[in-house]
């Protein structure tokens, strides 16, 4: 049986005993009015709290995660009954406050189960506000909590942002967690607080449905930071950014105490808004209740949004960059020529002897670099399960033993230069306005991209070559014919072009679903619904950009097709170049042959450019030429984008 359940029952039965005692006292008072016993300590405190209006103070609302309801009342975002001492606690801040005060004076219970142990942040705040002398409270051990506080020994707190992974959309938005730093110099052994859904469904659809509708439970967890670094940095190859929070020791203590209150407490996890990033905001607010964070978020909360929110409130320092193993490998490889890289790969594949690894004439430094890169690659091969554990151990040690004979070498050789931090990136909502000409018809265009990043948007702070968009919508209006139409509405539009090289061989792919207005067989425009997916390869271009080639399948549905549907294979080729910091150029060619439903061949070429003006302003210029069954369509669009 879960201990929380146990303790709740005990608390309940104690409340009954308590009222029995009061009843007896009351009777005694009636019998002997001369010996007027003073009202009990908790009753006095409750009366004082009531007169001070403590239950309506923001601190209390933060600690209980209350939010205002439409009816003007309050409701906690936490649904777990174990989080409340009053049965009405979720909706009634007063009742919960009074039950909490009373709870603190309950007789001793098993170690750790007393409200004093379970709600240390509430206790601290109420002690402060009501001036409860320490001696007045019952003695409680709280052994586990004391040990935990000692182990964590929090001196400062850090907001950590692991970025998305280039080829794994599961993480394209990134993630946030908090870290408590102790007195040690190293922060690998600090403790991290993470909020995550307890979701184990294997069915993707069920997973999405449950996640969107809050059917999963979310839990806070506390673990050594090195586990998180291993998970994100080493296994998933996601860079991490660490923002130290400008908090005093007292504020850090409050944050940790509130974290402890949330142990084993479940809350509904909503993928879009009440997610990992959102739920961390409560901890920051608990540290400094004058901050307004959790009540400043929108319909959805992206990890980068919370960083921006914290930045606007002036509580974060400059970001510190922690490159992933992937970034480190790229850096190490960049120091070697092709021969050196091949030598490292051969070593990592166990095809050459570490002792003979040194190429004739190579300097000691070059040998070190080859061996270091080889060691990283062996680790990578093991993580990818290309190696069994025993083989890994043998190969790895053999390479390392050779390396250990060659001295340390330069200290900062493998330091990866930090890319622009996430807080340098554009806002996650884009609004565009402009116009253009299509087939000699002038139009005005409005565009809304509610989330998150288009491949053409400025890269700063985002992953290059990746795109993830939800509900991207474009409306057009032609004054000449007084005509308004939907140009496109993409429910989902994801693309990932990830360059392959000697060390990494990722696939590139795309998936999109939504409506588009397009030229049909007869050359006239019509609105169709489309599902488009593709897969292929990408490579680095000689100019540092990304080239890609994808095989695609396009499924269309629309009134103008024979049988209302059309489907066919296609190919797309593209090049994405960051010409300067502020100028991005994209060339794209695509050809589709619709075999089914409505036979037609469509070929299209596009030149698109983005000019970054400021962090949150850019201009797009797009020119395209399309040929559909002998009908040609020329189009030019100019859009001003503002990011929020």
């Amino acid at each position, binding site marked *: 049986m879960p201990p929380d359940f146990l303790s709740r029952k005990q608390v309940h039965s104690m409340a009954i005993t308590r009222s029995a005692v009061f009843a007896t006292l009351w009777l005694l008072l009636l019998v002997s009015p001369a010996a007027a016993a003073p009202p009990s300590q908790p009753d006095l405190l409750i009366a004082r709290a009531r007169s001070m209006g403590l239950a309506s103070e923001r601190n209390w609302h933060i600690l209980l995660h209350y939010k205002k309801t439409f009816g003007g009342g309050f409701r906690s975002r936490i649904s777990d009954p174990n989080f409340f001492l009053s049965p009405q606690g979720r909706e009634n801040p007063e009742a919960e406050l009074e039950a909490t005060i009373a709870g603190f004076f309950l007789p001793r219970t098993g170690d750790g189960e007393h409200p004093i142990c379970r709600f240390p942040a509430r206790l601290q705040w109420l002690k402060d506000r009501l001036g409860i002398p320490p001696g007045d409270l019952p003695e409680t051990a709280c052994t586990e909590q004391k040990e*935990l506080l000692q*182990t964590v020994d929090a001196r400062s707190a850090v907001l950590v942002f692991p970025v998305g992974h280039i080829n*794994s*959309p*599961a*993480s*394209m938005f*990134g*993630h946030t967690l908090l870290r408590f730093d102790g007195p040690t*110099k190293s922060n*690998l052994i600090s403790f991290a607080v*993470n909020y*995550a*859904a*307890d*979701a*184990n469904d*294997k069915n*993707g*659809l069920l*997973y*999405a449905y449950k*996640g969107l509708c809050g059917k999963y439970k979310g*839990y*806070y967890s*506390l*673990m*050594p930071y*090195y586990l998180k670094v*291993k*998970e994100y940095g080493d*296994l*998933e190859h996601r860079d991490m950014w660490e923002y130290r929070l400008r908090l005093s020791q007292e504020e850090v203590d409050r944050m940790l105490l509130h974290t402890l209150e949330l142990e*084993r407490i479940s809350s509904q996890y909503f993928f879009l808004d009440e*997610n990992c*990033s959102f739920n961390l905001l409560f901890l920051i607010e608990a540290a400094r209740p004058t901050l307004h964070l959790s009540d400043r978020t929108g319909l959805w909360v992206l*990890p980068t949004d919370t960083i921006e929110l914290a930045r606007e409130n002036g509580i974060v320092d400059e970001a510190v960059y922690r490159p992933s193993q992937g970034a480190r490998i790229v850096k190490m490889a960049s120091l070697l020529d092709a021969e050196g890289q091949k030598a490292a790969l051969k070593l990592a594949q166990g095809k050459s002897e570490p002792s003979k690894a040194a190429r004739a004439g190579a300097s000691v430094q070059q040998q*070190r670099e080859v061996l270091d890169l080889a*060691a*990283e690659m062996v680790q990578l091969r093991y993580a990818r*399960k290309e190696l069994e*554990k*025993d083989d*890994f*151990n043998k190969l*790895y*040690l053999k390479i*390392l*033993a050779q*390396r*250990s004979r060659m*001295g*340390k070498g330069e*200290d900062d050789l493998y330091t990866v230069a930090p890319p622009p931090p996430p807080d340098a990136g554009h806002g996650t909502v884009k609004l565009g306005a402009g116009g253009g000409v299509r087939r000699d018809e002038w139009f005005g265009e409005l565009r809304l991209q509610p989330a998150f990043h288009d491949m053409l948007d400025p890269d700063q702070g985002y992953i290059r070559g990746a795109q993830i968009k939800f509900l991207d919508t474009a409306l057009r209006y032609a004054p000449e014919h007084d005509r308004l139409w939907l140009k496109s509405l993409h429910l*989902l539009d*994801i693309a990932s072009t990830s360059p392959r090289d000697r060390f990494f061989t990722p696939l590139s*792919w795309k*998936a999109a679903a939504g409506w588009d207005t397009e030229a049909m067989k007869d050359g006239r425009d019509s609105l169709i619904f489309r*599902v488009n997916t593709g897969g292929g390869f990408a490579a680095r271009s000689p100019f540092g950009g990304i080239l890609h080639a994808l095989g695609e399948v396009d*499924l269309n549905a629309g009134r103008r097709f024979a049988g209302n549907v059309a489907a066919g294979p296609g190919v797309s080729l593209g090049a994405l170049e960051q010409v300067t910091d502020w100028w991005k150029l994209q060339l794209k060619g695509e050809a589709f042959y619709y075999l089914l439903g409505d036979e037609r061949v469509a070929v299209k070429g596009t030149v698109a450019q983005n000019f970054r003006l400021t962090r949150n302003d850019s201009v797009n210029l797009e020119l395209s030429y399309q040929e559909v069954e002998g009908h040609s369509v020329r189009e030019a669009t100019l859009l001003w984008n503002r990011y929020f």
Partner: protein
Amino acid sequence: MKKLLLGFLLSLAVSGASYAAQAHTNTGCGLGTLLFQNKADNSIVLQVLQSTTNGSFGSQTFGISSGTSECQQPSKIAQNEKLNEFVRANMDNLAKEIAMGKGETLDTFVEMLGVTPGQGDAYKATLQANFNKIFTSDKIVLAEVIDNSVAVTR
């Protein structure tokens, strides 16, 4: 139209089914201990659906110690569970950085052993020079790594 959508959704549902979440799998006390197995190789489609979860799975613990009780304990220094856990979880990186003579994992290890900052560099150089005496076999376990490290730097 409806059928198309349905077909699209069905294909997602089927391809998403290949996923298996398995976090915190501890597989030993020695080298090659992966703490998060099967985390990196999910099917792409499920990842699409997971795109808004920012999610890790099922880690609902406040376990500030994962415990090394199933591992042999080091003898030469006072019992230090935090150090044992760190070495167990980071043994691969520690081996690499001892061999290289530098790195964050190594710095952490040296700090946890209580080496004063002034002596850190000499200490790390000694560890590197004695790599073969610390990692004596590919079956090495955390207790031996800690004991050997202490022994070679005495």
